[in-house]
C-alpha cells in the first residue's frame, strides 16, 4: 500500500511537471469518454421514448380488423366489408382462454360543436373494457359504464386535444357538446397519452358508448346492425400473445364458416410486436453510436501510449538512477503504469462531466430526449481505467526492463 501510494505520488509529480503535455494527452480520453456518454445517452433516450409510446397504446395488444373478402372473384380491400360483429367480440371473450379482455369499436370522423367553437375529430364507439385494454386513466370525471352502453346513453368521454379546442382551459365535465346535432353530456376527460408510435395524436378523440355511436352518430351498417370496425383484444400475458392470436383465428374462422383452404375474412395484427421492432432498431442505433464513440476512446488510448513512450525515452536517465538506488522492476513498472492510469482516469472523469453537459445540451437544443444512466457513467470510468492499463503497459514494461547501465549513460 505504501509503495502504491509512493507510485501515485511520483506519477502525479511527473504529470504536474509536464502540465501542457499531460492535458493534451488527456484530451483524447476526455473526448472519447464524453462522446461515449453523450451518444449512448442519445440512444438510450430514443429507446426510452419509443418504450413509453409502446406503453401508451396498451399492453399485450392485438387488433382484429375486418379482412378482405372475395366476392365473385373480386377481392375487396381490408375493411371494405364489415365482417366482425359485437357477437364475435363476446365469443372471443368467452371462449379464448388466453384473452383477458375484448373491446369492439366503431369509428368515424365528425364535427363537434360546443357553444361557438367547433372541431373536427374522430369519434370512437367503444365499451368500458376499452379503457382497461388501452390503459386509459381519467384526468377528470368518469368513464361511461356498461349500463350507458345498454341504454345507448348520450354521454361522451373526451381526449385532451378535443377539450383544448372546444373548451379551452375550463373543465368540460357536465357540459353538453353537440355531435351531429345530438347533444352529448361530457362525463369525463382522458389523461393525455401523447403521440402513438405511428405518430398519431392519441388525445384527439371522443369516446362514446358503442350503441349510441352507431345509432345516433355514425349510423348502423345496413347489412348487419351488429357490425364493428375493429376488435381490440388484450392477451392475458406477454407470452400468451401468439396463443391468443391462434385461438382467435380458429374461433373466428369457425364462426364465419370459412372452409379450410379459404382466406380469412379478417386480419389479426399484433401491435406490440410491430412497435417492438421499432424499439429494437433504436437499440441498435444506440449500440452503433456507442461503438463509434468507443473508437475515439481507443484513439485516445493510443495517444496515451505514444506520450508514455516519449516520456520513457526522455526519462531514461531518471529510470537508470532509480534502478541504481534500488528500484525494482515492479517499482518502475508501477510508476509508469500508475502515470498512464492517472492520465486516463483523470481524462475519464473530465470526459464524464463534459459528456453529461453535452447530453443536457443536446436535450435542450435539439429537443431529443437523452438519458445517461449511472451504469454508463460507471462503465465509462472503468473503461478509461482499462485503456490506461492496456496502453500504459507496454511503455511501462519498456521502462522497467531498461538496462540500468545504459540508462544511466543515456544522453
Amino acid at each position, binding site marked *: 500500500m505504501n509503495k502504491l501510494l509512493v507510485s501515485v505520488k511520483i506519477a502525479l509529480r511527473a504529470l504536474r511537471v509536464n502540465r501542457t503535455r499531460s492535458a493534451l494527452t488527456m484530451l483524447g480520453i476526455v473526448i472519447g469518454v464524453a462522446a461515449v456518454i453523450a451518444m449512448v445517452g442519445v440512444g438510450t433516450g430514443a429507446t426510452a421514448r419509443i418504450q413509453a409510446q409502446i406503453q401508451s397504446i396498451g399492453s399485450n395488444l392485438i387488433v382484429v380488423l375486418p379482412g378482405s373478402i372475395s366476392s365473385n372473384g373480386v377481392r375487396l380491400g381490408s375493411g371494405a366489408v364489415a365482417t366482425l360483429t359485437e357477437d364475435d367480440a363476446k365469443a372471443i371473450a368467452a371462449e379464448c382462454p388466453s384473452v383477458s379482455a375484448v373491446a369492439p369499436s366503431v369509428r368515424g370522423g365528425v364535427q363537434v360543436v360546443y357553444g361557438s367553437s367547433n372541431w373536427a375529430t374522430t369519434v370512437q364507439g367503444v365499451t368500458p373494457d376499452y379503457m382497461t385494454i388501452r390503459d386509459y386513466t381519467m384526468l377528470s370525471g368518469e368513464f361511461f359504464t356498461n349500463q350507458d352502453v345498454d341504454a345507448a346513453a348520450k354521454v361522451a368521454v373526451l381526449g385532451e386535444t378535443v377539450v383544448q379546442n372546444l373548451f379551452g382551459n375550463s373543465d368540460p365535465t357536465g357540459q353538453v357538446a353537440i355531435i351531429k346535432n345530438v347533444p352529448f353530456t361530457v362525463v369525463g376527460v382522458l389523461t393525455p397519452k401523447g403521440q402513438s408510435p405511428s405518430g398519431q395524436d392519441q388525445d384527439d378523440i371522443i369516446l362514446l358508448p358503442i350503441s349510441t355511436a352507431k345509432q345516433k352518430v355514425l349510423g348502423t351498417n345496413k347489412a348487419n346492425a351488429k357490425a364493428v370496425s375493429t376488435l381490440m383484444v388484450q392477451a392475458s400475458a406477454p407470452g400468451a400473445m401468439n396463443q391468443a392470436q391462434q385461438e382467435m383465428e380458429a374461433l373466428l374462422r369457425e364462426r364465419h364458416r370459412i372452409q379450410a383452404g379459404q382466406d380469412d375474412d379478417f386480419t389479426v395484427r399484433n401491435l406490440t410486436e410491430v412497435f417492438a421492432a421499432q424499439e429494437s432498431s433504436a437499440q441498435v442505433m444506440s449500440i452503433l453510436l456507442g461503438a463509434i464513440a468507443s473508437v475515439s476512446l481507443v484513439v485516445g488510448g493510443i495517444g496515451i501510449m505514444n506520450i508514455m513512450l516519449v516520456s520513457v525515452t526522455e526519462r531514461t*536517465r531518471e529510470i537508470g538512477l532509480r534502478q*541504481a*538506488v*534500488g*528500484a*525494482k522492476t515492479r517499482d518502475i513498472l508501477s510508476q509508469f503504469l500508475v502515470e498512464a492510469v492517472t492520465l486516463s482516469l483523470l481524462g475519464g472523469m473530465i470526459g464524464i462531466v463534459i459528456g453529461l453537459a453535452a447530453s443536457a445540451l443536446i436535450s435542450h437544443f435539439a429537443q431529443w430526449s437523452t438519458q445517461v444512466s449511472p451504469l454508463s457513467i460507471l462503465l465509462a470510468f472503468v473503461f478509461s481505467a482499462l485503456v490506461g492499463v492496456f496502453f500504459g503497459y507496454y511503455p511501462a514494461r519498456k521502462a522497467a526492463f531498461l538496462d*540500468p547501465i545504459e540508462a*544511466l549513460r543515456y544522453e
Partner: protein
Amino acid sequence: MAAVIEIKDLVKDYSLGAVPVHVLKNISLKVGRGEFVAIMGPSGSGKSTLMNILGCLDKPTSGTYTLDGISVGQLSRDELAEIRNKKIGFVFQQFNLLARTSASENVELPLMYTEIAAAERHDRAAKALVAVGLAGREAHQPSQLSGGQQQRVAIARALVNQPRIILADEPTGAVDSRTSLEILAIFQRLNREEGITMIVVTHDPDVATYASRNIHFKDGKIRLDEMMAHPRDAQKDLDALPAEAEPEAVLV
C-alpha cells in the same frame, strides 16, 4: 581488516557482433572495510566495467564477487536492486539529480524503495543533508544550487541508506578544483568517521593522492595496486586555500 569486497578470477566479456571483447581478464581483488580506494586508468581499460560490477549494475561473465559476505555474482535483477538499495551508495560525475525536485526529496529517493515510513524518510534525508553541509537547503531544487552543492546533494543521497560502500565515478569531473577538494574532504570524513568504504574512479592523479590505496588499470588487468602510507588530507588543503567570496566556501 574484514574484506567488504572480494573478487576472484573475475572475467567480463562483451560480444560485439561475432567478436568477443574481453573487458576484464581474470581480476582478483580484496577491499577491506574503511579503505579509500582510487581506481585509475585510461579509457577502455575496464575500470568502468569493474565499477558497474562492483555496483551490482552488471553481472560478471565468470568469477565470483562477494559483497559484505553475500555472493552477488549471479543474483537476479531484483535481488541486485535490493543489494544496491541496502549496501551501495552511488555518486556520479553528472550528479544525476531529479530536476524540479527538492534536495530533500532527491536524497529520500533510495528510501522510497524501502518500507521506511515518510516521517523517518524526511528525518534521515535531513540528517544526510546536514552531514554534507547543506543544512537549510532542503527545499532547494537542483537548478537553484551550484555544481558543488548539487554533488553534495548526490553524496547525501548515497549516504541516506547507510551503505557499506560508496562508489563514485569521476565525482570531481564536473566541478572546479576548490569544489573538488570540498567533495574529497566529505569523502574522507565519511570514510574516517562512518567507516564507509570509498571507491573512487578518477582520471585525475591529484585526486588519487587523497586515497589510501591506488589501483591502476590497463587492458582489463590490474597493473599496479599500491597502499599509500600518507594520503593527503583534503580538509587541511582546503583550509590552506585563500578564502573566496563565494558563499559555499565558508560552509561546513
